[in-house]
């Protein structure tokens, strides 16, 4: 039996094509199809139901120090409202999940974790949780993302809340028009300016219907969410990052605190930071016609296997086939000629810089500094 978000009935009524994702019945795309949805987010404002993701708070004295044990990122120095993209590392320096953690107050942090990793993450955190800290999983809480150049305007006009002074990678607690507590975070997974609204289920339904009436807003399914993040070169858990991949080979050095130490997997990660890694995550752009998908082998001109695709598909913005791949470090330079094996045929491709499409936000890297 698939789980439903608070907005499930609204998706079905609007004629969305539904599909299973991480145990939930989720909208993959709505009436106009993936490509139009994707482009709409790049030019106006897309509205996503991401309530399948896990929302937790961790609180108590010493919580920032605890987060610096779970992740390589600095949390003690974060001021209230600041959000940080980071990774939960395991003892081998692999990645348990990637997540965004926001400081709500001195002793309270809020985290949004991947739908497919919820149980594992919560078990991991509880296993290591000091007795004076508590973890609260808000199972019923909904999450709506508004993404695109018009997202701020939509939020202001629909919820009458001024977000002009809310910087990227920052969050603020507020009230819904009906007086309920909501959390507005300025961030997202598309490379556009945008927001994620953490709200109670009844507020989610009213907000979704309210946003729907705004002419700049269209609902966007998970399929376009994937093509949007792929254009930005953002990692997707289970694809670019797994329990085996380290944040260094995944190009996530920027999430690490300058003098971070004592976190899980620190030994491997420190070693990789000073000595480098055998392979690196890169962008791949096909120059031959075709589409290369996850799992496709990458070869050099001599037919030697030098890597593997972790994600791949069509970029609606570039009208080209793009993807991400782990490639042997000596060849992981932008412009390098490579071949991607698709159904037994070698398609010509180039190693490409990430992102494929420039970010419209202040970069996460700068925001994290």
């Amino acid at each position, binding site marked *: 039996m698939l789980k439903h978000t608070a907005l499930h009935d609204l998706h079905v009524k609007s004629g969305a094509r539904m599909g299973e994702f991480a145990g939930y019945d989720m909208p993959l795309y709505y009436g106009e*199809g*993936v*490509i139009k949805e994707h482009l709409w987010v790049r030019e106006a404002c897309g509205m996503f139901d991401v309530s399948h993701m896990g929302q937790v708070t961790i609180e108590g004295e010493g919580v920032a120090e605890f987060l610096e044990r779970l992740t390589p990122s600095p949390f003690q120095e974060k001021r209230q409202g600041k959000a940080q993209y980071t990774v939960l590392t395991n003892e081998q320096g692999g990645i348990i999940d990637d997540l965004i953690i926001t400081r709500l107050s001195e002793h309270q942090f809020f985290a949004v974790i991947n739908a497919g990793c919820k149980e594992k993450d919560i078990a991991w955190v509880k296993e290591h949780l000091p007795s004076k800290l508590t973890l609260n999983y808000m199972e019923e809480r909904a999450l709506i993302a508004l993404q695109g150049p018009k997202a701020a305007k939509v939020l202001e006009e629909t919820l009458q809340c001024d977000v002009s002074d809310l910087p990227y990678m920052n969050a603020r607690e507020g009230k819904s028009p009906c007086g309920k507590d909501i959390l507005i975070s300025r961030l997202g997974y598309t490379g556009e300016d945008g927001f994620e609204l953490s709200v109670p289920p009844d507020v989610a339904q009213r907000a979704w219907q309210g946003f729907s009436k705004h002419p700049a807003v269209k609902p966007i399914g998970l399929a376009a969410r994937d*093509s949007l993040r792929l254009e930005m070169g953002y990692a997707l858990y289970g694809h670019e990052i797994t329990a085996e991949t380290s944040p260094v080979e995944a190009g996530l050095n920027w999430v690490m605190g300058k003098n971070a130490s004592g976190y899980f997997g620190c030994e491997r990660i420190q070693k990789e930071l000073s000595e480098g890694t055998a392979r690196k995550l890169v962008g791949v752009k096909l120059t031959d*016609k*075709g*589409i290369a998908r996850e799992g496709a082998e990458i070869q050099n001109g001599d037919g030697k296997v030098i890597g593997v695709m972790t994600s791949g598909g*069509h970029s*609606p913005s570039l009208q080209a*086939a793009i993807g991400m791949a782990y490639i042997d470090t000596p060849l992981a330079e932008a412009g390098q000629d490579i071949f991607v094996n698709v159904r037994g045929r070698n398609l010509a491709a180039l190693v490409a810089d990430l992102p494929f499409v420039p970010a419209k936000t202040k970069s996460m890297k700068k925001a994290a500094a």
Partner: protein
Amino acid sequence: MAELKFTSDHESIYIDGDIAWVGITKYAQDALGDLVFVELPEIGRQVSKGDEFAVVESVKTAAEVYSPVDGEVVEANDNMEGDLELIAKPLADGGWIAKIKISDPSQLDGLMDEAAYKDYVAGLD
């Protein structure tokens, strides 16, 4: 006389004498969503019934197109490479992917007609 036939893998076939014009059905198109690429077969390729001879790539996934009969690929629809929306047209009006010269006409008897295919699809949902 031309007639339309269908396979359980959602190929649609327009039979024009000993030539089968092969495309994919509306059901298959709807299931795939936005198409982004079609890989056409080589002219002259010998195919057996059930062989993958083309691939239709959508945003979501790659779908193989299987030959409904034994035969030889005699033409591929190059226009489709530049205009994927052609696939939604009737087969004889540009919606065909490739034309196959049928070597064993008796294989056509195993294909569904329009009414049978309609019933088949109704049973899938």
